[in-house]
Every structure is written in C-alpha cells, then in structure tokens.
C-alpha cells in the first residue's frame, strides 16, 4: 500500500511523531486564541511555508498542496464574503488553509509505520495491534478479490449488474475472513 509519506531527512522528518502532533495541536490552539485579523491569518500561511522549507520541500510542493485545496477556499470565501463580510471571509479561508497545510506537512513527513506504532503504543494493546495489522493486510486482500471479480465479469463478455458484483465481493471477502480466522487459530493466537 502506497502512503502519503514523502521520504526525507530534515529535522521535521526526524522529530518523533508524537512531538509533531502535539506541536500541531498547540499551534492550532494558539491561532484560535490570537486576535482574528488578516495579519494573524497571513502569518499562519507564512509559518506553513517556512515549515515546508525546513522539511526540505520545494516551493513547488507547497504550491501543489495549496492548489489541491483551491475549491475549499472558494467554498469558504464566497458565501462568507456575501453573507458576512469581506474581512471575515478572507480571514477564515486563509487561516483554514494555513492550518490544513501544516496538518498535511505532519502527514507527509511522518512514516505511516511510525504513526501506526504511536497508535499501538497509545492503546497498549496487543489485540489492537493485531487488528491494525490484519486490516492493513485486508486492504490488499479485498483489492485483489475486487479486481478478480471485475475481470471475471468483463471476461464473460456480459457485464453482471453492479448489485451482483457487489454482493459477490462481500460474500467472497467474508468467506476469506473466516479462512483468515482459521489460520490465526492454527497459529495459536488467543485473544
């Protein structure tokens, strides 16, 4: 499974995941306490840009991630400009953009496996770790069942209805889940 992680060795990459998450929460909280004006909003955007650079991302990456959020900005800004006022509309859209970019940065600088590790450590449960492991594996298993069903449908020359294929996907997947349970039992897993 590919992940959103972008490899790198910057200081931000090297920070432990929990530090990054705490820092993000602190920054977002701080902004909500600061006065709501355009200076503060713009500062959040500048901060996001600086953090992207520190993480070794090119300005292009920053712009690309911003571009991905373009509709969001339009949706936020337009109604507010009409319903409330121009300044509030701009403040809200910029501050949200800054926050989302910083959250994105945490995601793309932290290995998925490290995040999973953090979640496991927080829950301190072996069974939870098992559930996570099985789930990640199941994404691939269901994916191959689904593509098999789609292929078989096409290969027959007559496409079965969506409901039939969907039902088949659930039936075959749930049967595999029971085989999976058997394999776990055989391995001596007790929960």
């Amino acid at each position: 499974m590919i992940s959103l992680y972008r490899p790198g060795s910057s200081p931000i990459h090297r920070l432990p995941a929990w530090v990054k998450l705490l820092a993000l929460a602190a920054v977002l909280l701080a902004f909500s306490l600061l006065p709501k004006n355009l200076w503060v909003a713009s500062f959040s955007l500048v901060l996001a840009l600086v953090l992207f650079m520190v993480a070794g991302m090119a300005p292009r990456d920053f712009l690309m991630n911003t571009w991905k959020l373009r509709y969001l900005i339009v949706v936020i800004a337009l109604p507010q400009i009409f319903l409330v006022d121009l300044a509030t509309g701009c403040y809200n859209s910029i501050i949200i953009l800054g926050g989302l970019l910083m959250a994105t940065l945490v995601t793309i600088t932290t290995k998925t496996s490290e995040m999973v590790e953090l979640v496991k450590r927080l829950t301190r449960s072996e069974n939870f770790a098992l559930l996570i492991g099985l789930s990640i594996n199941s994404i691939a298993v269901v994916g191959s069942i689904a593509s098999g069903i789609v292929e078989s449908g096409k290969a027959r020359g007559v496409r079965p209805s969506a409901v039939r294929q969907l039902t088949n996907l659930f039936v075959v997947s749930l049967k595999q889940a029971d085989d999976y349970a058997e394999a776990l039992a055989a391995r001596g897993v007790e929960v």
Partner: protein
Amino acid sequence: MRFELKLRDYPRIAIFVGLITALSFVPALYLAPEVPVTAQTLGVMLAGAVLGSYRGALAVLIYEILALVGLPILASGKGGLSAFTGPTGGYLVGFIFGAYVIGLVIEKLPKLNIALSSIIGFILGGIVTVYIPGILWVSYSLGLPLIPVAQGNLVFLIGDSVKIILAVLVLLGIKSANPKLLEN
C-alpha cells in the same frame, strides 16, 4: 451489552476495513465542491448491518485511524490529518456512530424481517447519524451559517437513498448465498 471480541471477529472487522476502502476507491462524484457523493457510505452501512453495532463501529474506526496516519484510503484517495480537520471531518466522525446505530437497530428488532429492520437502521444510522455531525462541522469549520449548509446537504439524500437500496439488496444477497456469513 458486553463489548467482547471473539477471534473470528478480528478478521471480519479487518476485512470490512478492506471493503470500505475498496468502495472508497469507486470514483467519487463531486456535485458540491469538497464534499463528494461516495460509495464509501455503502461500506459503512454494511459494516453496521453485517458486523453489528460495536464491531461495525470498530471497523469504521480502524479504517479512519489508518487514513489518519497517512494511508490514502478516503474518498478519492485522500488521507492524512488534514482530511479530518477539513470540511468532511464531521461526516467521518458520523460514520463511526452511524455504523453503531445501524447495528443496534437491527439487533433491537430481531423479530422484524431483515430487509425492514435494516432499512430503518440505514435511515437512522446511515443518514441521520452521519448528517448531523457532518453538517455541524461543515458549518463550523467553514464558518458558514447552519441552515444553508443543511439545505445544501439535501442533495446527498438522492445518492444516499440509492445506496440504502443497494445495501439492502447486498445484505439479502449475502443472506441467500450463505447465511452463516451474517452470524456474529
């Protein structure tokens, strides 16, 4: 009710994480920008209906944890922290409770025909329980007034009604193929 998990529940919950993911990859349709019509909710509904209340909710929770930590498995391949702080975060939270409510309704109406009890469950859990936090969060996070947001959200009723019908058909299909698969 005791929240106990048997060994068999583990892979069943896990396989639903896979199923919800697979359905999220069905190309999403953007009627309104940012909040897509997605087949993902079909997976959420069936998680509640097939696995039952707390197991269904757990499947959705794990799916979202995996998305949160960076797997691109949400609607149209999104994932990561920003998907949750973004405008659809409320729906995502609603999914967890929605699956729970669906399972609960079906469990509380054991005498009713499964088609009927699941329809009631899907409406209460798959629509009401998902829309409430969804609408509140869209309104709050985007700083928009509640009423127009709620009205705008009505467009999803069409898609979600179709998904309810699909979910009932799939549920009946699983039952007729192998009723053991619905036993928990």
